[in-house]
């Protein structure tokens, strides 16, 4: 089996799973309980938080456990809107965000917030000049992803930070779900980023677990009210096993990142070069994009057909994002990049992780060649 759908989800790491099991079996207290079992569970929870903070060079009190990327994006956006609504009602985002951002902003629009959606160029990147123009005195939030999940384009986060340094009251949220472990990433006091969303299952951690970075001193309203866990900002009994497993997964993924990124980049480059040799193939991912995502189309063949054809050979890829693939919609990122709809419907995505091998890419290309010959005469 060849698994090339790692941006949809990754397999849980063996050691991470072991941590999850061991904690689930042996550390059963509720971290909020008064007794020793509660203390012990709380100790592990705080130790996990500290490890994540240390790995990202931020403070433990800047890390909040969540259920994953969707919750994080919803929280960052709606939490900011509720918190800052008396200061302004203008939100800026881009046309290539994950649905968790897009739909959250959409919901706020229904409630009367004013939304500016920045366009992207043919490579999927926003122009900093567009952002400058869009900023207003009543802007409360800018939400821009670091790495696009469909084509792997990297947004100019550093330049955006420079611009936003002149707007200290605007919250800057970055969806970093596809970026962690894949591109260098700076949070903390040197960075202008206020909020960042992370999801564990994208880096070989458990499903249903994630965390938010909230810069010290920045406020967002809670979405989940209740028992006051996570310093009153995100209620709900803590998932200790999930937090510990995620902390371990993060440590493992951030070990030797440069080597890992290099090997993924090598595979991506190999595939790009080979695919470019086929006349009917269009490639949408840029060379300078994230090292793990390659989006392309074989003209005339719908993405879904490709996915199933490869599936027969036990090779797993996807039509752009997993979230949009089930309901058959075309990739919104590609549409935003001005790719004609006819070609966009043919798009498929290969997404890699550090355990993928060049050998797998070679087998993939053999199978692709067979399919290409098979599909050649179909219009």
């Amino acid at each position: 089996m060849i698994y090339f759908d790692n941006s949809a989800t990754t397999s849980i790491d063996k050691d991470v799973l072991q941590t999850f099991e061991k904690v689930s079996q042996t550390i059963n207290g509720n971290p909020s309980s008064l007794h020793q079992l509660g203390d012990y569970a709380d100790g592990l929870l705080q130790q996990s938080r500290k490890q994540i903070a240390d790995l990202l060079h931020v403070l433990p009190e800047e890390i909040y456990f969540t259920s994953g990327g969707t919750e994080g994006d919803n929280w960052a956006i709606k939490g900011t809107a509720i918190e800052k609504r008396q200061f302004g009602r203008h939100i800026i985002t881009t046309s290539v965000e994950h649905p968790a951002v897009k739909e959250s902003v959409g919901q706020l629009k229904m409630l009367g917030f004013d939304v500016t959606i920045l366009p992207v160029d043919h490579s999927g990147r926003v122009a900093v000049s567009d952002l400058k123009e869009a900023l207003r005195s009543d802007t409360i939030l800018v939400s821009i992803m670091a790495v696009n999940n469909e084509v792997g384009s990297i947004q100019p986060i550093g330049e955006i930070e420079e611009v936003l340094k002149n707007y200290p009251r605007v919250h800057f949220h970055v969806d970093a779900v596809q970026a962690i472990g894949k591109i260098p990433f700076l949070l903390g006091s040197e960075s202008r980023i206020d909020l960042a969303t992370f999801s564990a299952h994208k880096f070989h951690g458990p499903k249903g677990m994630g965390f938010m970075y909230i810069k010290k001193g920045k406020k967002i309203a809670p979405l989940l009210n209740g028992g006051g866990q996570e310093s009153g900002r995100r209620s709900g009994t803590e998932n200790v096993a999930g937090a510990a497993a995620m902390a371990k997964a993060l440590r493992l993924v951030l070990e030797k990142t440069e080597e890992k990124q290099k090997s993924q980049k090598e595979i991506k480059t190999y595939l790009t070069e080979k695919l470019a040799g086929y006349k009917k193939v269009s490639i949408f991912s840029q060379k300078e994009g994230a090292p793990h995502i390659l989006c392309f189309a074989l003209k005339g063949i719908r993405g879904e057909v490709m996915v199933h054809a490869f599936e027969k050979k036990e090779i797993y890829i996807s039509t752009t994002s997993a979230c949009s693939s089930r309901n058959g919609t075309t990739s919104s990122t590609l549409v935003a990049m001005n790719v004609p709809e006819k070609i966009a419907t043919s798009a498929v995505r290969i997404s890699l992780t550090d355990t993928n091998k060049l050998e797998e890419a070679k087998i993939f290309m053999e199978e692709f060649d067979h399919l290409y010959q098979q599909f050649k005469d179909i219009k």
Partner: protein
Amino acid sequence: MQYDEVMIRYGELSTKGKNKKIFIKQLAHNVKFALHDFEALKVHGERDRMHLELNGSDSDAVLERLESIFGIQTYSPVRRIERDLELVKKVAVEMIKELYTEGKTFKIATRRSDHDYELDTNDMNQLLGAEIFSKIEGIKVQMKKPDITLRVEIRNEGFFLSSRTILGAGGLPVGSSGRGMLMLSGGIDSPVAGYLTMKRGVDIEAVHFHSPPYTSPRALQKAKDLAAKLAAFSGSVQFIEVPFTEIQEEIKKIVPEGYLMTVTRRLMMRLTDRIREERKGLAIINGESLGQVASQTLHSMIAINDVTATPVIRPVISMDKNEIIEIAQKIDTFELSIQPFEDCCTIFAPPSPKTQPKLEKARKYESRLDVEGLIERAMNGLVITKITVGDTLEAQQKADFSSLL
């Protein structure tokens, strides 16, 4: 920079006449204990200085450990090299470069214990001075109070170079003034009192009163964590846990409310004194600060101190809270102390304890208790644990959790 030796200067000890030998022996013992895990390291305690031979031990780690050991005035890390003039020039430049920033001045101070060596001290000073001028642009020489002094010693065994003088913790070596019992609650004051007494050479044993289920396991752990912080100054602290539940329940039942606190304190003092006697201590130390709470008035002290003639040392008696907090922060006990776990002093605290209790009444109410029986049973239930540096709950959990994370 990796060093080969550390030279330790005693300061105050040197003036202590006959006792000097004892002090030096005690300090050597404490230094050995604090550095026991560096197996290659050797300690030589001489009359005027102590020398540590590092034999490859991590010098930064050793220097850091020495910071908190009482009885050390200053200390210097030393490079030991072969008697090779080219080498000494190179090392001298390296050592000055490490400390040099623009505008700083330096001097070379050579001593010669091998008087047959071909160069005398002036020759050496000039040789190295010239080398440094040529290798470090802009550096200036200054004989009086230079920013950097590079000391060079010419000995039979080699050249010894040092450029840094680090301020030690001062005070007297812990243990050189005998042993005392510290009444350690979980508050801010008692760890500070312990620290200050240790500074004057007293070896501390921590006595902690524990009243489960009225006090929580976390309160006990907190006191132990505080003891672990104090252990940094002596290597280890004996932690003596006194079961106090029965006594507190008895007092609550029998003694009038206004005298609850006074009688409770009398019993604590009696128990601490008994423990002191058994463990060959010479004093009791507590964290009382005048006027802070009801038990800490002069009237209260008369009513409580009545139970013993043993010296009771109260190092923070005349300090303001702010001054105490400042020290607590310095010795890293403050954050621990303010954790909110109830200790035995507060559980049965009456709404309005007498601030001016009468000695006679305190004696009378106490006599209604079976004092001997209560003390006997408490003494039979003592739990004594040796606590060393880093023996904290956090460290323990960290070790437990490290395999998971």
